[in-house]
């Protein structure tokens, strides 16, 4: 299935893989990597600019925030939150969406009508508003945010799983498995699922990127990950009052967010080309 790619695409995919790989390592090794305790406040050392700016100190490479906490340490722990939310959301939304999509695509008829109906309903629901409401009512925590996003972001999984299942359903090996007397469960899990997985991996990258952006937006609005956790969105929200005099304080977490999401998307695009999957809309 794989075909040769122009070198630029190769580079982009490699860059994406590099960014994501780095984020995974940083997230896993965060406690060992941080130069300071990310939660330790030091009111004598507030708003120290990053090293390359006037007044920067070697002890704080990326400066300190409005409460004197080391910004680099917070950024490193923030990687953990973003990656964790991204992965948990993808697992949950993937389970829901793939189950619905495969069932609809495989059985067709009434089952498919129901699946399509559920997808339509999901799309009609204003995503951010509902997520904000749930977090406000249930209480803000990392688990609540990823569960909420997981319950909301399954639509693209369902759409892609459904169409790709429809395509493989009629293929010879499914008919062969049926003729050999395989159970429906066996056919769905062992014959259909492995053959549509390629397309679903691409969706997973897109959804992970979206989940990370949404978590940041929710935390920015004060209804996501609670303080003092260093979510990048929350870091931007907390530093907002100081951004006019120290613009770097919102630039750093913002750029981190952009680079990570860009990396995940580049990797997803590259995988799509490599594996010959189609880009889901």
């Amino acid at each position, binding site marked *: 299935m794989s075909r040769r790619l*122009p070198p*630029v*695409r190769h580079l982009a995919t490699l860059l994406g893989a590099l960014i994501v790989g780095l984020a995974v390592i940083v997230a896993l090794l965060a406690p060992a990597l941080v130069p300071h305790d990310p939660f330790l406040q030091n009111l004598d050392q507030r708003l120290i600019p990053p090293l390359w700016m006037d007044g920067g100190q070697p002890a704080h490479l990326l400066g300190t925030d409005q409460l004197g906490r080391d910004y680099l340490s917070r950024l490193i722990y923030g990687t953990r939150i973003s990656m964790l939310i991204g992965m948990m959301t993808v697992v949950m939304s993937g389970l829901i969406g793939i189950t619905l999509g495969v069932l609809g695509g495989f059985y067709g008829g009434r089952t498919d009508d129901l699946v399509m*109906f559920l997808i*339509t*309903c999901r*799309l*009609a*629901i*204003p*995503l*951010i*508003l*509902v997520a*904000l*409401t*749930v977090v*406000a*009512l*249930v209480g803000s925590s990392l688990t609540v945010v990823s569960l909420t996003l997981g319950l909301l972001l399954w639509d693209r999984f369902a759409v892609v799983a459904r169409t790709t299942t429809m395509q493989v359903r009629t293929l010879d090996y499914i008919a062969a498995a049926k003729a050999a007397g395989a159970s429906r469960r066996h056919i769905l899990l062992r014959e259909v699922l492995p053959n549509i997985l390629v397309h679903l991996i691409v969706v997973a990258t897109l959804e992970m*990127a979206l989940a990370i*952006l949404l978590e*940041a*937006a929710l935390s*920015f*609005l*004060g*209804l996501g990950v609670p303080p003092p956790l260093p979510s990048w*969105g929350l870091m*931007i929200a907390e530093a*907002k009052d100081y*951004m*006019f005099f120290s*613009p770097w304080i*919102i*630039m750093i977490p*913002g750029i981190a*967010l*952009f680079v990570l*999401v*860009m990396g995940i*998307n*580049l990797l997803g*695009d590259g995988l799509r080309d490599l594996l010959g999957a189609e*880009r889901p*809309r």
Partner: protein
Amino acid sequence: MRFFFVRRLVLAVLVCLTVMVISFTLTRLSGDLAASIAGPNATAADIAIITRNYGLDRPLPVQFIEWAGHAATGDLGRSFLYHTPVWDLIRARLPVTLTLGLTGLAIALVVSLPLGILAAAREGTALDRAIMLVALVGQAMPSFWLGLVMIIWLGLDLQWFPISGVDSWQGYVMPGIVLAFSAIPALMRLTRSGMIEALAADYIRTARAKGLSRTKIVLKHALRNAAMPVVSIAAVQLGFILGGSVVIEAVFALPGIGYLAWESITKNDFPVVQAVVLFLAVIYIALTLLADMMNALLDPRLRG
């Protein structure tokens, strides 16, 4: 044809009902709604009064049917906070959100149509890849952060635009651009893929054989066929834009329905939250219905 329209309409009503159930259930998630409304300092007696006054002691299905029945006739209840009908609140703030949403969509179309067409006409070249990079950047941009960066740079440093409020049309420029960013990637990709498909069709080869210029072929023959899916996706995107404007309205302090919803969520004003969720869903449902019907009218193949 008529069958298709009727079926589509029934579906829209069913989706609407489901969203009503969801938005109603949503606000009951906290368990004790009366306690949330009363706030942390309320006594048990206060909570009891609120429970009785708002009819929260009745069974949930009864409460739902009453709310849904009123909502169907346009009565969305009263705000706990403002003590005015919710519909009045929404109506007063709707112009801001609509202006913002349409500005965002217009900017998105102005950017993504020409770029998508250009990318398709030069498919596989460096220009194509550069243009698609724009889509990737748009997709990765945290909108609230972009808003803040624009406030610092264009609002404060260069003083081109006001940093908040909508006293003049300039107030819509920055939030409109930020909002457009969320719609540009999808619109641009669709324009590009639609154009590539159209350019590969037989009638394009015919046009080329007739000796028509490349520009004329692209703009006159291919675009006409590629435009249809873009129009329907644009309608869907407007629905998403309106739903997503809550973040932008909060960043730029624009008094639209997104801001209203955010305020109501943080202040436990549930009738408003419920109503705005429903209202935005209805707008989305209406837009997709419109797009589907327009498509069916233009392309008989789609009538399933």
